[in-house]
């Protein structure tokens, strides 16, 4: 390798990053993204999201719906960290940022209808009061529901103030 003939045009291959340092850089990317404020919630947004009486889908549904929205007293970056934690410990979901205030969790595995993907959106009502809404953005509904009921919801308990509908 010391021979100049080999060194011509040679570019040293960088050592692949260890998983830990990759997670670290991902986390700092995500945190940087959330240095900007998430979308602002007006009083009307608050009312239309939380007031069950304004939501007529109840007329068509047979049972009580399980919520996909919750209020929290945590700040945006704590919320993001929590979802990172959930993604990491699931050992199958990756976290991506789509937009300001919107993150996406995507299953690495292929499910019955492709990869399950969950979009999480954070709305700021006040500094210490945020709304978090998550919904399925890809994959099989059953698999999405299973993940929500078994992992996402139980694990997010410590940041949830109130679930919508309860």
């Amino acid at each position, binding site marked *: 390798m010391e021979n100049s003939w080999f060194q011509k045009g040679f570019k040293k291959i960088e050592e692949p990053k260890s998983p830990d340092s990759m997670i670290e850089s991902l986390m700092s990317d995500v945190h940087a993204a959330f240095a900007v404020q998430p979308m*602002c919630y*007006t*009083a*009307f*947004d*608050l*009312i*239309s999201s*939380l*007031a*069950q*009486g*304004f*939501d*007529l*889908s*109840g*007329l*068509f549904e047979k*049972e*009580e719906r399980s919520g996909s929205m919750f*209020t929290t007293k945590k700040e945006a970056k704590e919320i993001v960290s929590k979802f990172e934690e959930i993604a990491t410990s699931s050992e199958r979901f990756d976290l991506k940022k789509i937009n300001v205030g919107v993150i996406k969790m995507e299953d690495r595995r292929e499910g019955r209808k492709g990869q399950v993907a969950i979009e999480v959106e954070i709305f700021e*009502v*006040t500094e210490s*009061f945020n709304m978090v809404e998550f919904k399925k953005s890809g994959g099989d509904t059953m698999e999405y529901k299973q993940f929500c009921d078994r992992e996402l919801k139980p694990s997010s308990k410590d940041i949830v*103030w*109130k679930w*919508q509908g*309860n």
Partner: protein
Amino acid sequence: MSQCVDGFKHVCNSLLRCFDIDIGKSSGGPGDPELLARDTVCNALISSSISTPFISVSEIEALYELFKKISSAVIDDGLINKEEFQLALFKTNKKESLFADRVFDLFDTKHNGILGFEEFALALSVFHPNAPIDDKIDFSFQLYDLKQQGFIERQEVKQMVVATLAESGMNLSDEVIESIIDKTFEEADTKHDGRIDKEEWRILVLRHPSLLKNMTLQYLKDITTTFPSFVFHSQVEDT
């Protein structure tokens, strides 16, 4: 325009024939509530067909099935009272809600405390995915205009925010609530007169389309699949 109305009359006539065949429980005589219901809804829908030309025969039938289900829950009289409405919305009649009351009042165009099929169908038609956005904007404005004065006052917004938080079991300090409303009015009340009129509401909603999310019920588009039993009753093809 006239094509719409003709097409609509055709749909309604088909529906009339359809209900004649499905005689079932009704006696069929004049004054029979079922016949009256479908006659009035047809007339009402014909006159509003210019703005809501989306209802097909099977959709009206399916909507009627839903209406019958809701209206027979407490008193089987072919009408929805407030208790039955609450029961249908919340699956419990123990829940008092400022908002359900407001919705019920808006549905109740005859102001007699009960909903007939015509009122039910006409109000729900605004929630159809294909309904004109202006109708949705109007309806939502009226929902928030608690005192029905033609504008939304700051005090009304506060009342609704407080009620929303109470219903959800959350409490916030008055200071925080005031700051939320301040922020909202700063954005919405462009004329700075302490209230939000229809024009300002319209502009706000066009900027925040998610404010209208409750004004569209996807279920209405698929209603014939939610109430499929009607497919067998209908002897008439959809046009």
